[in-house]
């Protein structure tokens, strides 16, 4: 396969000017002319069954550089498709016709850089809300002046919600950004004619903090703080992906002890986040005892994390090159025992939920995601795995030594709320299993090896609790950030969520939302 990809590309696109493939066997870079871009990406996505990771836009001194990153497939490869154009040329062909997963990525690039993607049916009003900002604000451009952007606020006067339902008396029910009890801020537009909701459109980015802009020209160590804190319920996974990107650029080795402990902590975080997700699902169905039980488990795990690392969300553990501080083996053992105990609680809870018909009635066939939809939208994590899309970066592109661990990637066929719940429980089991192995195999020695910075760029990735996360980092030789691009799993899953949710009863909405375990801060960045 490894050679195959290169050969196939050379055969399909013999004209070197249009498409040249270099590298291998794990990482290919394909330089591609604009006219073949859509065709090539479509071929990779549909025929080669690669997954779309992200689109990285970089504004070099003279040209735009677009990097479409694909991964997976039969050979577990990384394929970077590179397209470029002079700075004056701001239009690229859109690839969404065949790679629907790139939809929001292109919209983001349009909003952030002012690029247009010819053939994309709907650009604009995405990250920068048109009813809050004027046209031509392009925050990620180098010459962007925030003072000007803010001083000359002139939001579109005629902004209207995007509606597609055409029926007599159809209207848009706005929900949020402040709604319900303690929920993240996000705005929903539910199109309805009363009673059932026909179509749902999320309006994200109320929480957009522009962390990618914020990271620019900051030292790598500082940006780690941002990587941990932009979506802190899964802080460790994001920090890990970021650190791995920096380490990959600089060719730094992580000491084995640190690598094992990183896995231990990453799985502890997954366990805790899944417990939280289970709690939310139980709460959304108003099953109070189960919600309380899951809540107890979640708090137990927060306390275990706090006791082990000092911080309940595992802040301050990671450092480029390893860990900031070593963890005593005894403390790790205690944490493992605690986690095993928690797992037993979770298993009891699962056994009880499985026989609670009123609970199951509300989850089954709710928020159905067909397998084709999951792949077309590039859904990630437990949501994709519940629709028989059993991808897992830990297995396919192992990092930090995951290849040495025995674990399963649970998956389900149905793609409904209940399937997602079962995947969550199954993953909790696997996480504890990995934690056990991590402590069995953990070596002694230091936990951090310092290294000199070099200029370069690399992708760091990790399987965060909600799915694959990709951090693209470009460093200069001083160790300062040139470009930082984060693609978090919730970004893809929100995109898929709004496709999965159609024609439903309003009262099911909280359940669907909970069963997708979506994070707004992760998607908004």
């Amino acid at each position: 396969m490894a050679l195959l990809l290169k050969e196939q590309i050379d055969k399909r696109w013999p004209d070197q000017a249009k498409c040249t493939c270099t590298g291998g066997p794990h990482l290919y870079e394909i330089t591609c002319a604009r006219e073949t871009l859509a065709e090539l990406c479509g071929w990779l996505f549909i025929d080669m069954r690669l997954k779309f990771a992200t689109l990285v836009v970089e504004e070099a001194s003279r040209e735009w550089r677009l990097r479409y990153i694909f991964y997976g497939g039969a050979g577990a490869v990384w394929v970077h498709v590179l397209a470029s154009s002079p700075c004056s040329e701001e239009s690229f062909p859109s690839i969404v016709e065949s790679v629907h997963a790139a939809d929001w990525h292109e919209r983001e690039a349009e909003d952030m850089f002012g690029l247009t993607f010819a053939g994309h049916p709907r650009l604009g009003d995405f990250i920068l809300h048109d009813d809050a900002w004027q046209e031509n604000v392009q925050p990620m451009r180098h010459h962007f002046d925030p003072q000007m952007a803010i001083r000359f606020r002139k939001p579109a006067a005629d902004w209207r919600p995007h509606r597609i339902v055409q029926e007599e008396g159809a209207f848009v029910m706005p929900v949020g950004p402040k709604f319900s009890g303690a929920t993240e801020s996000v705005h929903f537009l539910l199109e309805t004619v009363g009673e059932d909701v026909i179509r749902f459109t999320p309006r994200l980015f109320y929480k957009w903090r522009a962390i990618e802009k914020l990271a620019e020209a900051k030292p790598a160590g500082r940006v780690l703080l941002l990587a941990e804190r932009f979506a802190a319920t899964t802080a460790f996974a994001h920090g890990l992906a970021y650190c791995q990107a920096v380490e990959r650029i600089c060719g730094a080795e992580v000491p084995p002890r640190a690598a094992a402990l990183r896995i231990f902590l990453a799985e502890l975080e997954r366990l805790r986040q899944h417990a939280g997700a289970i709690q939310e699902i139980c709460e959304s169905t108003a099953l109070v005892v189960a919600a309380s039980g899951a809540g107890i488990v979640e708090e137990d795990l927060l306390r275990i994390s706090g006791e082990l690392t000092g911080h309940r969300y595992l802040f301050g553990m990671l450092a480029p090159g390893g860990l900031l501080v070593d963890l005593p083996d005894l403390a790790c053992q205690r944490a493992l025992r605690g986690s095993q105990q928690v797992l037993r609680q979770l298993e009891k809870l699962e056994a009880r939920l499985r026989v609670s018909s009123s609970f199951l009635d509300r989850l089954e066939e709710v928020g159905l995601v067909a397998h084709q939809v999951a792949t077309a939208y590039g859904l990630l994590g437990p949501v994709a795995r519940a629709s028989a899309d059993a991808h897992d970066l830990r297995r396919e592109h192992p990092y930090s030594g995951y290849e040495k661990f025995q674990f399963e990637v649970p998956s389900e066929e149905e793609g409904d709320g209940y399937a997602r719940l079962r995947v969550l429980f199954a993953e909790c089991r696997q996480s504890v299993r990995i934690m056990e192995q991590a402590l069995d195999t953990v070596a002694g020695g230091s936990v951090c090896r310092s290294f000199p910075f070099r200029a370069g760029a690399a992708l760091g990735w990790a399987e965060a609790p909600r799915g694959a996360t990709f951090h693209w980092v470009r460093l200069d030789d001083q160790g300062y950030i040139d470009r930082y691009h984060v693609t978090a799993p919730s970004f893809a899953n929100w995109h898929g969520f709004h496709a999965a949710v159609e024609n439903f009863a309003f009262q099911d909405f909280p359940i669907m939302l909970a069963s997708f375990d979506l994070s707004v801060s992760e998607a908004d960045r």
Partner: protein
Amino acid sequence: MSHWVFNGIRTGIKTSAYPRRPETAAGVTPGLPRGRKLDAGEAKALMDTCPAEVFRLEDGRVLADVRRCIHCYRCMRIAPHPALWEQSYEWALQPGRETGFVSAFKKSINICVVDAGDCGSCLNEVRQLNNPYYNIHRLGFFITPTPRHADVLLVVGPVTDHMSLALQKVYNAMPTPKLVVAVGVCALSGGVFAESFACAGGVTDVLPIDVEVPGNPPPPLAIIHGLLVATGRKAPVDMPATPYQSGGSGP
């Protein structure tokens, strides 16, 4: 479905003894740095380690402005002369004076929670308040979805540009008397997001704050302390007159 009832009863009481007695379980708080006595050179090293400019030097003492701490633990874990660390959770401060609102509704307070761009952890800790471990209902606190019923506005997050209008709308929609409790370092000063053009530097830029709860994120117990301070049932930590610099020997 009766098994749920028995299951619920069998779980027993998990609820924290706080505020009647201190909570002693491990891992309930990330703790906060304290200042210490250091000479100028050592102090400079400490101050340089901290990315959040928490420390400052006054009269040969290093003072810690805990409101700014983002829990990166660098002062403790990599500074040559580490800061001291206090595993407390009673952190709430009252920047202004008494609010005068307290007597009427001491025992039944409705809280409207607004996420103004937090990272998810502060909000997750707020969500834990309804967890059996903390169960704020026993203290007469209720989280309400609508500002119309709310006495207290609890804000998390640095107030993003996109959320600032919504936050003001929530505040305006609340009946008086009302209090604003800012929870978490981002809400207090913007935290790591303070420099972003898309964020305000905390809630103060938008609304007057009555009670501040530092921490990134503050643990549930600290938030409870904040709510108790807001209702006059607990004293605030006296800040910044005598900050956490007292005592303190080396580790």
